[in-house]
């Protein structure tokens, strides 16, 4: 066992934490929206623009070769991070949303009217709407697996939805609104026993849980760099080669072709086939730096620190009268969703902001989930390893102050 994280030391990697918000020391509890960026990531990105700035895969000159080398090194870092068999299975996208849209358009283009796709009630809109649009284009059918009041997926009900017309199971690995960790191993086993591929939305999972695509045997996996301490505007679609090879391109243009003539154009091999146009080079390099950072800390130590915060936060919130926690699954990441009697989440959000505490209030891009709980919105404090118990204490004080104001 490695020693636990030295949180005070780790916090110095995030200069953003060392500032005042509304005249109070900033307390950042919105990591599920986007994580903070350590100095090493910020420097990798600025370094590219300051000294690199060249395009990749095209130039014959020094700067372009440097950029290409770093770009390719990042792909290898992602490959190792996910333990993919080959780097070519790592496709850079604009984010989780971009990755899911790629699958919905490319894999989806082969689907026939009446074919079915299974999602769950706790999906982010980015794992709902691309499938709804596919249904409009192709006449496919979307099936939705229900959850219980704790926010846990009902596996038997999910299993019952699987039938001979099911073509894909697309499920969130960790819910952004509830923190629920879904039993992805079981879901994959269930789908694979019927030869149905599985897509995992790992936007939230990626920073909290080690993901080994070969051990999981997952077919597609999507995540965003910005929820892994990396830059915005870049993400990853992992896809199994056997599937990616048979799928048509999604976006088209430069970089994704082998040869173009007006008579016939042939496509490049993986991963270029799915990476049309100039990519977010600085972002990809930043993602590589983010993975280096996470690896140096160790995902296990991160998970241990966050489990402790979750445990402490959950029991602190439980003490507050008039507070209901939303998302009480047995297996959870450090996301604390809640509502307060007679106080709208937006008022909570604004009043906590007055105390320098950043949380999110709203539907978290999970409107069907909010409807499931009969709530217009929730307040959500999402914690990462750089948060402290003292910050949770400050959250409790600020919540109680809000309650007094509304009493």
């Amino acid at each position, binding site marked *: 066992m490695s020693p636990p994280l030295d949180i005070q030391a780790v916090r110095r990697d995030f200069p953003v934490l060392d500032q005042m918000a509304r005249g109070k020391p900033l307390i950042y509890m919105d990591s599920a929206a986007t994580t903070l960026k350590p100095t090493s990531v910020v420097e990798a990105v600025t370094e590219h623009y300051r000294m690199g700035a060249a395009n990749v895969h095209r130039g014959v000159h020094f700067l372009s070769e440097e950029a290409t080398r770093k770009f390719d090194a990042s792909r290898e870092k992602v490959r190792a991070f996910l333990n993919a068999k080959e780097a070519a299975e790592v496709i850079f996208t604009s984010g989780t949303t971009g990755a899911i849209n790629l699958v919905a358009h490319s894999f989806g283009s082969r689907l026939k009217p009446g074919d079915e796709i299974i999602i769950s009630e706790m999906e982010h809109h980015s794992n709902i709407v691309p499938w709804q649009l596919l249904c409009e284009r192709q006449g496919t059918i979307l099936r939705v697996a229900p959850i219980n009041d704790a926010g846990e997926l009902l596996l038997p009900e999910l299993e019952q939805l699987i039938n001979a017309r099911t073509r894909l199971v697309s499920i969130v690995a960790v819910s952004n609104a509830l923190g629920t960790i879904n039993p992805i191993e079981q879901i994959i086993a269930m789908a694979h026993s019927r030869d149905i591929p599985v897509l995992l939305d790992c936007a939230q999972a990626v920073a909290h849980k080690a993901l080994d695509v070969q051990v999981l045997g997952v077919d597609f996996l999507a995540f965003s760099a910005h929820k892994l301490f990396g830059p915005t505007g870049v993400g990853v679609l992992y896809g199994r080669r056997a599937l990616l090879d048979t799928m048509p391109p999604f976006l088209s243009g430069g970089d994704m072709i082998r040869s173009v003539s007006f008579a016939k154009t042939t496509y490049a091999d993986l991963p270029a086939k799915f990476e049309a146009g100039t990519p977010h080079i600085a972002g990809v390099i930043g993602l590589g730096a983010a993975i280096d950072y996470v690896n140096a800390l160790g995902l296990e130590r991160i998970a241990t620190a966050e489990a402790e915060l979750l445990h402490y936060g959950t029991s602190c919130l439980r003490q507050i009268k008039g507070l209901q926690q939303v998302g009480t699954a047995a297996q959870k990441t450090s996301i604390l969703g809640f509502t307060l009697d007679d106080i709208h989440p*937006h*008022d909570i959000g604004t009043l906590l902001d007055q105390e320098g505490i950043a949380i999110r209030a709203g539907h978290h891009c999970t409107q069907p989930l909010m409807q499931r709980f009969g709530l*217009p919105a929730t307040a959500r404090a999402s914690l990462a390893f750089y948060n402290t118990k003292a910050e949770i204490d400050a959250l409790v004080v600020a919540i109680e102050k809000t309650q007094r*104001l*509304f009493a």
Partner: protein
Amino acid sequence: MSSQMELYQQVILEHNKRPRNFGKLEGGNRAAEGFNPLCGDHLRVYLEVTADGIIQQIAFEGSGCAICKASASMMTVALKGAKVEVAQAMFGEFQRLLKGELNPESAPNQLGKLKIFSGIWQYPARVKCAALAWHALSGALSNQPTVSTE
């Protein structure tokens, strides 16, 4: 005084807790629904407008945050008995107030107690909450049954 107190003044908290003219208006002749997709705030504004253009009765129902509800409640108080043209002019003034473009202390206006929302422009995320009831009102006056702030 902290800025928190400027936004959540007692008057606003009180209107939130005890909204005036809250509920469905029986016998109204205009209504519109206002929806703020971003936060799920949802209001319905009912009017009874007389033949000579007076807002005889006004009421609202729905759910939203304190800013949204207090704004709706105070709007109904301010507009009961007002001429339609006056209500429309006040909507314009109120919108400029929310954007920080109208200083109620120096520019002539009819906003009266609604001036309390003058600090909101500092909270861009909350401007829509304060404006929702007015958008619904405007929809009702122009026979537009649903309005969205998006």
